[in-house]
């Protein structure tokens, strides 16, 4: 008998994906329904839960805006300019992708924390970074740094410089060229980068936990809320928040797919 290889491959791929992705999400949905949708919504409406969600939303927004702008500028510099150490810098910006966020949190703790390098100057001006909002911002910015940069840099390499040169010979200033030619050329890459930044910011846990401390109602984000709720065996709250994050992530994923879909104008 012939072995149906194609069918076997298909089933194994689908089975693997289901086991890793679909089953866990399904499990969360079932637990939420088990616990009672009303109860879960009640848990999510409590002030500490609302605070955690709001904090995550704010952090994600800050990451998108700052690393979005930085990503565009850095991509332009890395792709279009030639300078000593460019290759090294080009490698370094990917570090947040490979380094464990927990290690990142620890490293920042050494700089900003108790007995850290910047403890004295920060104390003098009365700034608290660790276990406070600025710490969360730094942690989120670090882990989301490369996404916009990488997406935009890829598109910049692909589109080349002739469109910009054409604009310049037609009398456009640097700003006019950027606004009218470069930005429309990179807009899809930018959108993808922003979406990935958003997704990463929503899901960050380790760095945010170490640098922020997950203080309920203060530095607790959606992810650290889930962690705390599990520890305290508040399953309704944990699964509810997990479902919220899963839904938002899926929405972001849908957005990304839509943005990546080939457009007619290309």
């Amino acid at each position, binding site marked *: 008998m012939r072995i149906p290889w194609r069918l076997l491959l298909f089933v194994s791929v689908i089975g693997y994906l289901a086991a890793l992705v679909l089953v866990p999400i399904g499990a969360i949905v079932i637990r939420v329904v088990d616990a009672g949708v009303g109860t879960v919504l009640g848990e999510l409406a409590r002030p500490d839960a609302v605070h955690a969600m709001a904090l995550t939303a704010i952090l994600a927004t800050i990451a998108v805006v700052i690393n979005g702008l930085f990503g565009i500028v850095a991509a332009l510099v890395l792709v279009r300019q030639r300078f000593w150490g460019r290759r090294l810098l080009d490698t370094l910006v990917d570090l947040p992708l490979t380094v464990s966020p927990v290690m990142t949190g620890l490293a920042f703790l050494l700089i900003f924390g108790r007995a850290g390098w910047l403890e004295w100057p920060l104390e003098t001006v009365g700034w608290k970074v660790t276990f406070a909002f600025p710490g969360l911002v730094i942690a989120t910015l670090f882990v989301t740094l490369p996404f916009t940069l990488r997406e935009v840099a890829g598109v910049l390499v692909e589109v080349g410089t002739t469109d910009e040169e*054409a604009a310049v010979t*037609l009398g456009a200033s640097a700003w006019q060229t950027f606004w009218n030619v470069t930005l429309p050329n990179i807009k899809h890459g930018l959108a993808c980068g922003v979406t990935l930044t958003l997704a990463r910011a929503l899901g960050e846990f380790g760095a945010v936990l170490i640098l922020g401390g997950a203080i309920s109602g203060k530095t607790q984000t959606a992810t650290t809320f889930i962690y705390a709720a599990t520890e305290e065996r508040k399953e309704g709250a944990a699964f509810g928040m997990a479902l919220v994050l899963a839904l938002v992530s899926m929405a972001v994923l849908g957005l990304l797919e839509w943005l990546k879909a080939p457009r007619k104008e290309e």
Partner: protein
Amino acid sequence: MAIRIDKLTKRFGDFAAVDNVSFEIADGELVALLGPSGGGKSTILRIIAGLEDSDGGTVELGGERVDHLHARARQVGFVFQHYALFKHMTVGENIAFGLKVQGVERPEQRRRVEELLGLVGLKGLDGRFPHQLSGGQRQRVALARALAPQPRVLLLDEPFGAVDAKVREELRRWLRRLHDELHATTLFVTHDQEEAFSVADRVVIINKGRLEQQGPPLEILDEPATEFVARFVGEVNVYDTVVRDGRVTVGPLEVPVHHHPDKAAVRLVIRPYDIKLFRVEDQGMATADRVLPIGDRVRIEATLHGGQPIVAQFPRRSSLLRGVEAGCRLGVEITHSRAYLLPS
């Protein structure tokens, strides 16, 4: 406006992409920069436009030095090989771009776009996007866009390189007509000698960053200044020989040579259409190897009695071809040739 470049030099590391090149283009002239790919033609064009800095030499437009001017201030119309149209803008917006960034009023922009669409034969297409146009149409839009802000000179970098052969032919004729209408000073880069000779008033030949020769197409064809030019602008027969008493010998052939001293080692260059071959019944000077009809011409490959190959070409109906077939004996006459001194 006239273009004048003087002792232009551009180096990339140790490699001289442009090596001390000087030439002038008169106001209203249409000139081709011709040469093999990678020879520095495009670099010269980009330096004139200000898209590239030179390492030495000067560029003048209309008698005014522009080396210090940024590309945006040079008022140069530039057309790129792959059009470089803004793909998120319509044809109309593309053409109006230069006017818009220079602060021209809307109604004037619209008037000018209409006028240019008429000029390039694309009336009614101003609402289309570049991806909805053919290659030839895109290149016309690119040209209209470059012309819109009334540039002082027009520079085209391999303008027809990205379209297929038939459209290319059409665009060449169209560019020539357009130039006869507008008289804009135009410099275009090409590696295709047919394109250069069929379009330009004058041809400047660049090889390995150096200027080899400049002049009208016929002069370059008939009086190639260097061996490189002779070989580059069409097929040639080449023989290395030595001058004796004002003439050189190639097998049984004797060809008079001027301008070269006695005993000088020279390279004799003869074009296939400067050779007469005809059937003879005696020994002759050569034996025909192959007779190949190629379109409206016939190519004859023969061997001189002495072993050297010789290639000649005739119009298909030429009376010289009578009786010529592979294996027959041939008489040979050289009507035109040039000899170049060999480096000793």
